[in-house]
Each structure stands twice: as C-alpha cells, then as structure tokens.
C-alpha cells in the first residue's frame, strides 16, 4: 500500500514536471500578450526533433548516444527552438498585435498545423525511437519502484524551473518582462524596449517547452510529430487551472493536474465500485478544472479582475 503510494507519487511528480515546463510557456506568453499560443505544443515537439537531428549529425547512430552527446544536443536544441520561437512571433503574431484578440490565437493554430505537417513531411509521420539519457536503473523504495530516468527528469525539470524563477524574479531581464506584462504602455513610457521583452518571452517559453519535449521523448523513448497536441492541451489546461499569466500558478496547476490524473487512474474504479473506470480519468480532470473555475473564475493563483475595474470591450 505504502509502496503503491510512493510509486504513484513519483509517477505524478514526473508527469507534473513535464506538464509544468510546457505550461510555463503558455502562461508567460499569456502574461505578456494576453494571447493563447496554440503553437506552443509544437515547440515541445520541435525540441525532440531538433535534438534528434543534432544527434544524427553529431554521432550518426542515435541509438548509441551517450549521456554527454545527449546533454550537448539538449542544450543546443533548446536554444535553437527558442530562436525558432522568436522568429515565429515576428512573422505570425507581431503583425496582429493590435488586432482582435482572436486573430493571433488563430494564427497560432495555423502555425501549429504547418509545423506538425512540415515535420511529418520531413521526418515521416510515424513515431521514432528516442535514446535515453542514462541507463534505466530501478530502485526499490519502500515497495515502490523509482527509475533513474524519473529522477533525472525531476532534477532537470526542477533545475530549469528554478532557473526560470531566478531569471524572472532576480534578473534585470525578468524585471523588464514583468514590467511589460503588467503594463505595456507604462513600460513604453519609461523607455523599456517592449519588443525586446516580448521576444525574450518567446525565446524562454519555447526553450522550456523544447526542454520538456526532449525530456519527455527520452523518458518515454519515442517521439512523433503529433506528440505536442495532447500534451499541449494538458499543459494549457494546467496553466488555466493555476491561473493563466501566473508563473507559480502554471507550476501548481501542472502538479495538481498530474496528481488528479494519477489519482483518478488509481482511485476512480475503487471509489465508484467499478462503475467509472480509468477511462473516465480525463472527465475527472476537466470536471475539477470546471469546478475550480466556478469558485475562482481566474484560476487558483490568477488575479481575479473585477469587471468593473477594467473596461472589457469586445474581445474579438
């Protein structure tokens, strides 16, 4: 029983860490531009593919890649995807910055569709095996099984999240980004380079997403062109649950969602005496999301903006 509990906790933490890395990208872009970037799931996918491509160029036989080559590919790939993210913003979203709110969102849908299909054409539609960072070693902890890969993912994800926390809360870049996200006009008035700050966000968000993608591909051992769609939706749900626009919210939302999913799988059949099986897990996740939003319409850590204090004109 205890073993099972530990097992499930570690499982949930691992999934939550990956969700969090992606949710952060959604929430940062939203914080600064009030825009849902539907192409963000594809940054996750691109991370894995770029890393794979680098490995192929680096050592030829990807299957035999060692930890050092992988780490090198990891670092380069996330930066490459970050730059791709900045480029996409310039081409597909910047022209729409003063347009309706729906326009950049749908433009991002177009970007997402193009990227998935582009990769399908270039790399083939079928899933591809992805090498693991370290040999999978299993540890028995009080009856639960924890694999070295899970530990690795947790360490890497938390390191990145800590890095982001440092960047946002301690660095000058972070101050600028937060200033721009709070009020673009005021930031402009103070002579802050608003475009630079937005580019920064579109660099860091995809970078984290790509990191999530590589960790994910390495954890599960495969990647596919459509891998961003499902996990992107989950991460987006997590970001909304935590309160979109809030960085701690995204992380909290991601872990809550992961625990709900794991808990749903483990407990749904037991609690409902088999009436609702594990197949209703996603229903549970969405139901909890809806309940949370009914109580807190702006998510758990989101700032509830009263309608009277801000003039809401048409959204699209």
């Amino acid at each position, binding site marked *: 029983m205890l073993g099972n509990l530990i097992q499930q906790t570690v499982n949930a933490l691992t999934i939550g860490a990956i969700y969090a890395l992606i949710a952060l990208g959604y929430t940062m872009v939203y914080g600064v531009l009030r825009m849902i970037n539907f192409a963000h799931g594809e940054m996750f996918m691109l991370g894995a593919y770029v890393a794979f491509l680098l490995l192929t160029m680096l050592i030829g036989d990807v299957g035999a890649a060692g930890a050092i080559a992988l780490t090198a590919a990891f670092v380069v790939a996330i930066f490459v995807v970050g730059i791709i993210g900045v480029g996409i913003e310039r081409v597909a979203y910047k022209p729409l910055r003063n347009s309706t709110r729906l*326009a950049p969102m*749908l*433009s991002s849908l*177009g970007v997402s569709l193009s990227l998935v299909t582009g990769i399908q054409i270039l790399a083939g539609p079928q899933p591809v095996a992805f090498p693991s960072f370290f040999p999978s070693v299993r540890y028995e902890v009080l009856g639960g099984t924890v694999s070295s890969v899970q530990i690795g993912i947790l360490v890497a994800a938390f390191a990145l999240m800590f890095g982001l926390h440092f960047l946002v809360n301690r660095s000058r870049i972070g101050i600028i980004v937060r200033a721009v996200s709070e009020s673009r006009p005021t930031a402009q008035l103070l002579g802050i380079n608003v475009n630079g700050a937005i580019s920064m966000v579109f660099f860091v968000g995809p970078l984290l997403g790509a990191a999530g993608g590589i960790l994910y591909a390495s954890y599960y051992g495969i990647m596919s062109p459509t891998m961003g769609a499902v996990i992107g939706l989950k991460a987006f749900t997590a970001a909304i649950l935590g309160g979109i626009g809030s960085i701690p919210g995204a992380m909290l939302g991601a872990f809550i969602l992961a625990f709900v999913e794991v808990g749903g799988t483990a407990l749904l059949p037991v609690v409902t005496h088999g009436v609702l099986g594990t197949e209703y897990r996603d229903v549970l996740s969405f139901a909890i999301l809806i309940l949370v939003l009914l109580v807190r319409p702006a998510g758990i850590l989101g700032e509830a903006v009263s309608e009277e204090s801000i*003039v809401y004109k048409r*959204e699209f």
Partner: protein
Amino acid sequence: MSAAGTLTATRPRSGRAVSFLFFAIALALIVATPFLPNYYVRVINSLLIYILLGIGLNIVIGYAGLLDLGFVAFYAVGAYSYALLASPQLDLHWPFLLILLVAACLGAVTGILLGIPVLRLRGDYLAIVTLGFGEIIRIIINNMDWLTGGPKGIARLDKASILGIQVARPIDFFWLLLVTVLVAGVLVWRLERSILGKAWAAIREDQDAARGIGINTTNAKLAAFATSATIGSIAGAIFAASQRFVSPESFTLQESVLIVLMIVIGGIGNILGIVAGAAILMLLPEVLREFAEWRILFLGLLMIFLIIVRPAGIVPRSFGPDKLIRRLFGK
C-alpha cells in the same frame, strides 16, 4: 479594433461585382449539383453540413462574442439522437422528422445545461471550459458502451424518410441540407436583426454597459447557447442519417476548432462569411487531394496568411445578406 473598423468601408462598385460573383457561384452550384457525379454531391453535402454548423456556432461566437470550443458536443448530441432512435441499437425506428424535433429539443436543453455553469467566465476561461465540456461528452459517449456502442459506434442506421419520401441518396440529402441551411440561415439572420440580436451585439461590445441598460445578460447568453446548440444538434441528426453510421471519432476537438476557424477566416459574425470560410476550408483540401500531406501544410500557411492580411475575415461583418440583396437588386 480599428482594423475591423476600416474594413466596414467596402467600396460600392467592387462590392457589387463581388455580390454578383458570390450569387452567381452559389446559384450555379445549386442548379448544377443534381447533374454532378455523386462524389461531388457528397463533397457539397459535407460543405453544407459545415455551413450549418458554422451558422450555429456563429451565434455564440460572432453575435454574442463568447468563444465556445466545445460546439462539437451538440453536433454529437444530434447525431446520437438519430443513431439511438433509428437503428437496431435500441430497436427503435422513429420517423426522421420526429427525431429531428427531439434532437432540436435535446440540443437546446444541453445548450442551456452547459451554459449555466460557464457563463460567469470570460474569454479564455470560457474557451477552455467549453472545450472541457466537449471532451467530457465525447469521452462519455466513448465509454457508455451499453448505450452508444462505445468506440464501435452505431452502425446500420435506418434510411431516413420524410413523409413517405425516402431520403437516402446523396442528392436527396443535398436537397434536405440545402433547405435546412436556407431556413436556418434566414431564421438566424432574422434573429440577428431582432431585438435579441441587438442585445447579443451589445453584450459582445461591452457586457457591463449592456447590463447598465437593463439587459439580463445571463438570459440573453443562455438564449444564444440554446439556439446555437439546437442548430448544431439538427446538423448532427442529418449527418448521422446521411452517414448511417456514427462513432465518437467524428466528434473530436479538432472538429470544433475547424468550425471556429471557418467562421474566423470567412468573416466573424456574418453568415456570408461562414459560407466563404467553409468553402475554403472544405473544398480546398478536396481539390488538392492529390498532394496528400502537402495540402495540409498549405492550408496551415494559408491560414496564417489570411489572418494576417484580413484579421476580420474575408467578408467583413458589415457585408451581410441584407447588403448582398441590396447590392444585387437595389438602387
């Protein structure tokens, strides 16, 4: 906002030419369809179903300004109404028109039931919650095997017949769909011009000010959800009758997103825009069928291009059916 404003000023002369072109193409299609091979009729039928869905969803998105990403749920409600009431699944074989009525009512009820909890939410939060509802409905359908057949779906649906006339061939469905689309289009257009339509517009423009002039925004929004769901449900019932097989695969999130895209690319809040959007998103992939995956890439890039060039859609909101008629026959 200002971008949308400038688009309202369409130059009358080119507008007239465009009107005639639009009208001529539509008329030519309607006249020619009975003589086309069945494959083309099926493509046009599928186009008409999407136009019908677009008309329904547009009420919520275009008129009332609420981003609904779970519209496909209502489509599913309608489709499964037909599948359950006219198939060996429950061994019920109700007449088509009766089922259509039941589907419409069920759609309205689900619309209101889903609407009540979500209407406090705004914008993106509303979007994700409606998306969640859409997914919940799909998952439930996929898992209630005893009723819906689960992933296997329901096969061998009855052939539909209206007052003794069998509706089974693609061309029969073409006429059925054409009439439905026209009736729904006219009614919805009249609804938009009614006092309720004005109230929706007010809510879309400024919800707080709308309350300030005495509009019960909750009721008005529920009315939007209910009408939109009714149309979606009717479209679902006709879809099921023409496909004679339903399965949860037809009601995924992508389907909802596709309809939203159709509306936005075509011209949000405008029935003519929906026709244009549906034509682009449905016909283009069919025309480019040869190119397999390249066609989807092309579609994605075209989407980005169209939205950047015309963020308010191909047909501006102001160029509605009334203007079309005035341009065609008027002074």
